[in-house]
């Protein structure tokens, strides 16, 4: 349930207000640009919006140079400028380049040896294929995508709540690259994986649901992030535009895009699609608890597991502070509203919206257990209230033809007789009840269409269970009403039902201005579901509780106490008759038996307590993760069109805009009768081969990561404000090949890596010809610095400290202990020796190492990494605990692996630089080790050799040669 103030039900839910816009500056600039842009004539079609062509590779003079089609495009340009391409890179340089390029790790000495020993023309292909096949490939290339989609393990709200299951999406991305998942499918799954999952096959269910993490990781704002959901949707659209389409769509939020053909209507057409989508909620300062995570198994398979979990809590009489809700996420039992669960008494938090004097109290806990076994609170409307209303949209949207509704309620005992009544109603659209339940101080009625009938009279203070079955096919609604004094006795009533689509909104309200005040009402356990309801009952179903270890401890302890009392009594008159040997023996035997019973009982208590502790641990773990695996993803919400927000202000709604996709990219409004949010249709537009941007943008990114710069040097902006391509024909050629290959990213790697362009030497042999300084010519290979991840991973690799197993979740504190706020936000750095892509990344607190070496900005899409050089980086090499620990480890590795200093130096060079030392280097290294050893304050103490060797490896790791790739 997401609150969309600008949506169609604005009038009905007028009290749901987002706070006033909080970005006046940004709004102002857009407004300003919008005004400036008014009256400008429609531009001729910008290159990026024209269809992708399939140009022939041009003719070149040096026909011997090209190896793949790419080379002809590159060489033609070089030749046209009267330049020459650089010679081929030497084999060691090429190997090191391709290893880092594909895996982010240096070549092993074994790889170097194999490659150098294989003179055949297939040698390069062999190493390339083995690198593409290694899991390290996905860990490097997945990271590129994670940069673009601004992946983080926290939510970005003011308290930066952790998202313990975000890692599943991260690993999904890595796996997708490793399996060469076709790029169009990759996009479809990320945008509409939850919908695709339901279409089967069952084996892909979990993976596809996980993929929607792409949308769910959208940034959250404020200390009550659901109040700023319009900003989260904006962030989704911005990132979708930048990552997939290479367009900054954000400008169109406030006005028609000044530079690119995107209108504000189209922006809100997209907005409606995401407003019709339900995002997992990570928790926030205001509402500490996680909600609406996406189960990795289909809902029907889960119901029993959720019910069992509740049964276990009920049986153990535990108070779950943070039960995750993911199944029928209405919060109809109001438990997340409880103060202990992060709620705020008297203020209903989403999914509920409300006004009027209501409170969340233990007094309103229903005794019925047919819907929820466990609970401590419900909602109370005090007697004498004039008006109130609480409501929510029903999401995920119901499908099917039968809807079941559950409501537990009671009217207060001390209520004076009044004609005013409470209305509980459901309808497809706001202010249009289909079925109404009217509750007065003494009776309950049902109303459907124009007919109203009394169901029965009410006993004051008595809890009642109402169940409705709305059968669309038969056009009938049945009501069953049971009371807590006789749950098995039901009153039934049926009325004709006219309902075209399942109910989309659920409201409880009362009072009209001027009317009498309302009777007091307690309500609890509201349920709306397609599956049948359990009949009213006050006890938990025995089948569920059976097999649960009952809490025997109190009884056992009681028995123990009695036995111990008995023992002290038998000890008290500790003088058995002196002449009665037999009695003494009997007494001794009795005492022995008592002792053994006591010790057996103690052992029992200990054992059962231990079992209970384990159980509690298990339950606590399930509180954090649920009884099923969950992903931070999205699901379908209530489909609706959004209203345009004038100047981007949610409080200033314009006309409603039909959902749809950008016309300039082949889109339009959603087809009439589209059932869901429209995300599935959106993916079809986005991945259509006719879409001029999707393929171009991705091939440009792949090119960029191979060569350090894109053919379009603004990889997130293919619009008019971006740079035009340096080689437009090559870009189209690559895009066409990409689509023809079935959107295979690995095929594109092969095409690029085999090219003479990729295999050129890097710029600047000392005595070579002066080459064009224009890197856009690709007349030589551009040297680059290792990224933050490559640097850390390489140091770990060479030291022997790299744990190459994939990472999973992070050691966040248990969810039950969370109470992060803007005063005490979540903040942690978790270290491990796995690859850096698995480091926990916070959205608003940058990881100290990744920030130091220009890692991605987890706040916003990072199209390319910067390379800054600052002295604090040098300090890291000189003094950081990490470098010192790893070089010590490296030294030990060298000591163990080789017996002589000479061999150690050689191995160190091979590991770090993929080459043997030159003679002068060898001599210098020996001299360094000697000087260092003798410079140690107490030569002979400790391990001077290893200490000197560690210093030597610091020199290698600190060298530019290690840090840069030719």
């Amino acid at each position, binding site marked *: 349930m997401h609150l969309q103030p600008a949506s169609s039900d604005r009038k009905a839910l007028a009290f749901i207000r987002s706070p006033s816009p909080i*970005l*006046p*500056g*940004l709004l*102002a*600039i857009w407004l300003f640009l919008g005004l400036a842009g008014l009256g400008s004539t429609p531009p001729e079609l910008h290159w990026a919006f024209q269809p992708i062509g399939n140009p022939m590779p041009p003719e070149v003079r040096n026909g011997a140079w090209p190896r793949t089609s790419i080379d002809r495009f590159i060489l033609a340009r070089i030749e046209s400028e009267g330049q020459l391409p650089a010679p081929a890179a030497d084999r060691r340089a090429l190997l090191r380049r391709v290893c880092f390029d594909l895996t982010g790790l240096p070549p092993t000495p074994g790889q170097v040896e194999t490659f150098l020993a294989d003179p055949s023309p297939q040698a390069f292909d062999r190493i390339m294929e083995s690198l593409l096949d290694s899991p390290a490939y996905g860990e490097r290339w997945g990271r590129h995508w994670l940069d673009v989609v601004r992946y983080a393990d926290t939510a970005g709200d*003011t308290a930066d709540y952790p998202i313990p299951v975000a890692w599943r999406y991260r690993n999904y991305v890595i796996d997708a690259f490793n399996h060469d998942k076709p790029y169009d499918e990759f996009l479809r799954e990320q945008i509409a994986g939850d919908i695709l999952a339901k279409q089967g096959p069952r084996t892909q269910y979990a993976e596809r649901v996980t993929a929607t993490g792409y949308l769910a990781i959208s940034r959250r704002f*404020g*200390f009550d992030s659901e109040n*700023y959901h319009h*900003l989260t949707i904006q962030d989704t659209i911005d990132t979708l535009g*930048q990552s997939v389409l290479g367009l900054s769509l954000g400008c169109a939020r406030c006005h028609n895009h000044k530079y690119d053909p995107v209108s504000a209507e189209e922006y809100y057409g997209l907005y409606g699609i995401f407003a019709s989508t339900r995002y997992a909620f990570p928790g926030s300062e205001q509402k500490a608890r996680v909600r609406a995570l996406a189960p990795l198994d289909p809902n029907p398979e889960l119901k029993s597991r959720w019910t069992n979990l509740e049964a276990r809590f009920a049986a153990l009489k535990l108070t779950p502070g943070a039960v995750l809700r993911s199944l029928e996420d209405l919060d109809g039992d109001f438990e997340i509203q409880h103060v202990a669960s992060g709620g705020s008494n008297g203020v209903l938090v989403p999914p509920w919206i409300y006004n009027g004097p209501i409170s969340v109290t233990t007094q309103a806990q229903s005794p019925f257990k047919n819907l929820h076994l466990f609970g401590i609170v419900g909602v109370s409307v005090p007697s004498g209230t004039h008006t109130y209303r609480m409501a929510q949209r029903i999401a995920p949207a119901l499908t099917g033809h039968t809807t079941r509704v559950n409501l537990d309620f009671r009217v207060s005992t001390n209520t004076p007789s009044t004609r005013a009544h409470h209305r509980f109603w459901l309808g497809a659209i706001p202010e249009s009840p289909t079925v109404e339940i009217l509750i007065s101080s003494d009776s309950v009625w049902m109303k459907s269409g124009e007919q109203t009938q009394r169901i029965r009279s009410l006993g004051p203070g008595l809890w009642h269970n109402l169940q409705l079955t709305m059968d669309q096919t038969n056009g009938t609604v049945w009501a069953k009403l049971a009371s807590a004094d006789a749950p098995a006795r039901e009153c039934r009533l049926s009325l004709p039902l006219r309902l075209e689509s399942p109910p989309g909104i659920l409201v409880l309200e009362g009072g009209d201005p001027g009317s009498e005040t309302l009777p007091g009402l307690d309500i609890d356990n509201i349920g709306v579901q397609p599956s049948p309801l359990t009949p009213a009952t006050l006890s938990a179903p025995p089948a569920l509780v059976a097999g649960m270890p009952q809490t025997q401890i109190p009884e056992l302890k009681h028995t123990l106490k009695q036995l111990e009392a008995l023992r002290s009594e038998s000890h008290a008159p500790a003088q058995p008759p002196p002449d009665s040997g037999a009695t003494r023996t009997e007494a001794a035997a009795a005492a022995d038996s008592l002792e053994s019973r006591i010790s057996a009982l103690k052992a029992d208590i200990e054992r059962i307590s231990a079992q209970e502790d384990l159980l509690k641990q298990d339950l606590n773990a399930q509180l954090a993760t649920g009884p099923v695996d969950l992903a931070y993803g999205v699901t379908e919400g209530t489909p609706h069109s959004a209203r345009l927000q004038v100047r981007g202000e949610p409080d200033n709604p314009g006309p409603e805009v039909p959902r749809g996709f950008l016309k300039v990219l082949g889109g339009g409004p959603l087809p009439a009768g589209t059932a869901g949010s429209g995300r599935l249709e959106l993916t079809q537009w986005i991945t259509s081969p006719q879409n001029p941007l999707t393929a171009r943008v991705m091939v440009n990114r792949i090119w960029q990561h191979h060569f350090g710069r894109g053919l379009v040097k603004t990889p*997130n902006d293919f*619009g008019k*404000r971006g740079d035009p391509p340096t080689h437009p024909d090559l870009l189209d050629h690559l895009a066409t090949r990409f689509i023809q290959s079935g959107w295979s990213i690995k095929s594109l790697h092969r095409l690029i890596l085999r090219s003479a362009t990729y295999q050129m030497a890097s710029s*600047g*042999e*000392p005595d070579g010809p002066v080459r064009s300084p224009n890197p856009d010519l690709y007349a030589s290979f551009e*040297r680059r*610095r290792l990224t933050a991840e490559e640097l850390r991973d390489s140091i770990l690799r060479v030291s022997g400290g790299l744990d190459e197993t994939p990472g999973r979740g992070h050691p966040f504190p248990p969810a039950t202990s969370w109470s992060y706020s*803007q*005063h*005490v*936000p979540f*903040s942690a750095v978790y270290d491990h020796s796995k690859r850096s892509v698995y480091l926990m990344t916070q959205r608003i*607190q*940058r990881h100290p190492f990744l920030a130091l070496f220009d890692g991605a*900005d987890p*706040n*916003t899409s990072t199209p390319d990494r*910067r*390379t800054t*050089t*600052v*002295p*604090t*980086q*040098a*300090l*890291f*090499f*000189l*003094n*950081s*605990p990490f470098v010192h620990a790893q070089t010590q480890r490296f030294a030990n590795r060298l000591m163990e692996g080789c017996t002589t200093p000479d061999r150690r130096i050689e191995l160190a060079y091979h590991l770090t630089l993929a080459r043997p030392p030159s003679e002068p280097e060898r001599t*210098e290294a020996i001299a*360094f080790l000697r*000087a*260092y050893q003798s*410079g*140690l304050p107490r030569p002979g103490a400790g391990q001077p050799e290893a200490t000197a060797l560690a*210093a*030597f490896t610091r*020199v*290698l790791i*600190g*060298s*530019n*040669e290690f840090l*840069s790739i030719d």
Partner: protein
Amino acid sequence: MKSHPAYDPSRRGFLRSMAAGSILSPAFLQQLFASDTPRSPVIDPLAPKAPHFPAKAKRVIFLFMSGGVSHVDSWDPKPKLFSQAGKEIRVDEYQGRKGDFKMFLNRPNWEFQPHGQSGTEVSSLFPHMAECADDLCVIRSMQSNHTNHYEATLGIHTGSFTFARPSIGSWVSYGLGSENHNLPSFIVIAPATPYAGNQVWASDFLPGAHQGTLVVPGAEPVANIRRRTDTSHLQELELRAIRKMNRRHLANRAHDPLLDARLRSFETAFGMQAEVPELFDLSHETDATHRLYGLERGSTKGFAWQCLVARRLAERGVRFIELIDSGSSNNWDSHSDMSAHGPLARNVDRAVSGLLRDLKSRGMLEDTLVVWTTEFGRTPFNSTADHKGREHHHWVFSSWLAGAGVRPGTVYGESDPYGIQVARDPVPMHDFHATLLHLMGMDHERLTYHHTGRDYRLTDVAGNVVRGILA
């Protein structure tokens, strides 16, 4: 290592000229550069740059009080809050919620007195700062855009209340570069993490060199600054070997400015290792100086230490120095009881006045801009007549400026008789920032950075220089 020479104003020109190298351990550096060839030009993001127009201020000391200092208890005298305390009023917004709220005026805890020749009224909350009234330009019409700490703290630092953007310190560093290459151009001294975390001093899309370097009072104030080898000699061996490798590598690769820049960064790092600890070594500061700041000798605690270190950073040419007095908790956020302002004020009051006097006596107030501010004020009213605390209040609050280019001994702007709204000359956030940049010689509309298709500014598309503040 020889310790840094004591401050001498005439040395500052020299410090400025040493951008290309280090003055430390000249013998060692000569050795490093013995066979150096003339270097190729290097793209140096911290190279000193000329301002847009001449300005007095060469650097900023930005004093940030975290949590929201009550304006009506400090810089903004409201006699009616004393005489009409308990009076019922109506407001249409309270704690971020719109509505019609019945509220009661609450009496300030501290009395006001006129101070100095200017007669600026300051409360007894800040008795020492009050004595400097003739040096201050108190702004009583500051406005923020948000009622939450996080957003308001982000806003006063970056001009943006929701999205992370470059900090004002990063913008100043970007605009003017650094005068001392052994030290970062933007240094933040904070004992605890503030609201919105390190976004407060992040460079965001500006080059990383302009990011604020965090100094946390304690054993290792700057990350990785402590040499880990047993002796300096051993580290020199390492550095010499790295230098040799890198020079050989560079020689085989013609001119590559990035390789060259990295080579030099080791030398600067080596310099920092010496300069930074020396910077925090206050043993050569006189007893009189310690007294001036209210600092106990040997202590690294409290705002007094932060202020004295700030003066030393200013002397060494650091462009933007920010001191944060507390963090995101245990701060000025006195919801339940205003008396909590007392100890927080005692932590900063004498220290700040000591800093102002010290700068003045050394002639440094001439070219240093000192800014004192907080993220918002506190409500002059509350839900009950006898409520002891005050809530967040962003409609109006108070800050002050002092030093280079600022009109001293004045008050700018005015709030209404209860201190609820601005009555005259509002200073919204972008105007505040535009004025600070102006005082540094920069036109806020020309200080731009191209990013994601547009030219970004600290002041977005707004901002007017507040002329009434200028000397």
